[in-house]
């Protein structure tokens, strides 16, 4: 919840003329997430993340600094992970403190990894590789390939 609010506030601060839109999206995302966590509904998490992501995207639309995007990405991941953590352990109590500590360490590692990957992606995006239909097609193919890879891996893990 606090992370969601923090990401939302950061998006509003970074947004220029689209501040109102970013504020609306952030507020609704935080409210929806709060209600969902209170009621124990995991269905609200993707919608809250989508709204927060849209608020972050709005901050870049008005000439925002793209270098901040890895931080937003890491914040969004933290919101997602913490929300699911909260929902998964809603009823059960840990038998020892080690379970929570290990998960917190894993979460920190994921956040740090996502910042690093984001930074690499930002620097790659600054390289002028030209444009054109071929590159657009490659991008779409990459997205479709990602979806196919996730599907294949999830089936193989069965």
């Amino acid at each position, binding site marked *: 919840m606090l992370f969601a609010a923090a990401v939302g506030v950061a998006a509003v601060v970074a947004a220029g003329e689209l501040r109102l839109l970013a504020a609306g999206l952030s507020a609704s995302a935080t409210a929806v997430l709060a209600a969902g966590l209170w009621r124990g509904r995991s269905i609200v998490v993707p919608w809250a993340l989508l709204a927060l992501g849209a608020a972050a995207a709005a901050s870049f639309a008005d000439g925002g600094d793209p270098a901040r995007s890895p931080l937003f990405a890491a914040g969004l991941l933290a919101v997602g992970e913490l929300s699911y*953590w909260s929902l998964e352990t809603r009823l*059960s109590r840990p038998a020892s403190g080690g379970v929570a500590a290990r998960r917190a360490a894993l979460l920190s590692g994921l956040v740090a990894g996502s910042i690093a990957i984001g930074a690499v992606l930002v620097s790659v995006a600054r390289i002028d590789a030209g444009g054109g239909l071929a590159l657009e097609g490659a991008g779409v193919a990459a997205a479709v390939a990602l979806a196919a890879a996730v599907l294949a891996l999830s089936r193989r893990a069965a």
Partner: protein
Amino acid sequence: MTRTTSPKLTTYAGLAVFGLLAAVALGRPELAVLAAPFALVPALGLPLAREPSLRAWSTVGAERTVEGGTVGLELELRAEAAVPHAEVAVVLPEGARAVEGPNPVLVRVGAGQTVSLEWQIECGHWGAYSLGEVAIRCRDALGLFVYEQKVGDRRPLKVYPSAERLRSVLRPLETQPSAGNQVARERADGIEFADLRPFVHGDRLRRVNWRATARSGELWVNDMHPERNTDVVIFLDTFVEARRGDAGTLDLAVRAAATLAERYLAHRDRVGLVVFGGILNWLTPATGIVQRYRIVDALLDAEILLSYAWKDIDVVPRRTLPPQALVVAVSPLLDERALAALADLRRRGFDIAVIEVSPVPFAPHTADGADPLVERLWLLRRAARRTAFHSLGVPVVEWREGEALQSAIGEVASFRRAAHLARR
């Protein structure tokens, strides 16, 4: 072990694909950066996801307990490969709850490690339970898949009804030939003094009352009452019950029946049981600790089963109701079939006492919106039923939850004393 995809995997994969497509469509690389962590988690987690190999053994601490008592349940978990996140929950039957130990509990089981968990389960209501099954829900390191399984053998656990306090029980009018604790009416060898009578040939010398003999100048002997046992049949009416929430007349009736059986058996009497209702069950009278467990086990199976079939006392095997037995009926007096059977027993010469487990506290009252006239008519009808039994010489005593069973037994005893005097 059943495996399901967690909502997290679906969400992250969807967000990653959506973000990448949006980045391509809008020409904004920042969107790809925002989506990248959501692709990273499945990319790391899916190749590493393995079904956890967990083995579990559960042990239930006891096979029997009493209402409100606790039973220990131990579980040992052993994993071949590390299980980072395992939620363990004891599958509790209705009426049972874990009073010690969190349920469910979250544990981490290391590779080759054994984790022991313990709970104390309280059974709040008498009955036959099965305990020992444990549900385990595991997740992989990144929580992308959920693996669920149930482990442990279900062991039967008998929860006996808690006994009411009873100082004395209702004594039958007639005794049986075997030795017991009940002072018989007839005169024979015994301890209790009965009367004096003139000496006749065959009387033992030690029974001569020398004081009376010296006063009268001829031999007088003491007559004694022998100690005999009695036959008691507990008649449990299970045709219908009145229930409100967790409490009902059947619960009280079973508690009273178990208490009476225990007390009579402690007096070395032979006790039998007739569960008269939708399901007919009976136990022929016997004595001893084994009979006590038989009766309580039979009471645990007592349930209300709706039946429209007419049943009379002829369906009960004859040897279940020995002559001169005291029949203690525990009934809410709600069903005509049970009332007719009791009246029939009385007409056949059985000594009967009825403990009426009052359904009034469980019935809807005027405050609950019931018509006061209906309530009054119902109560009057119940009073008429009691009067009909009284006219047959059968004492009927109302017993309510919270009241001592001893007072009801005392009331029956005083009714029988009065009836006895009236007959004379």
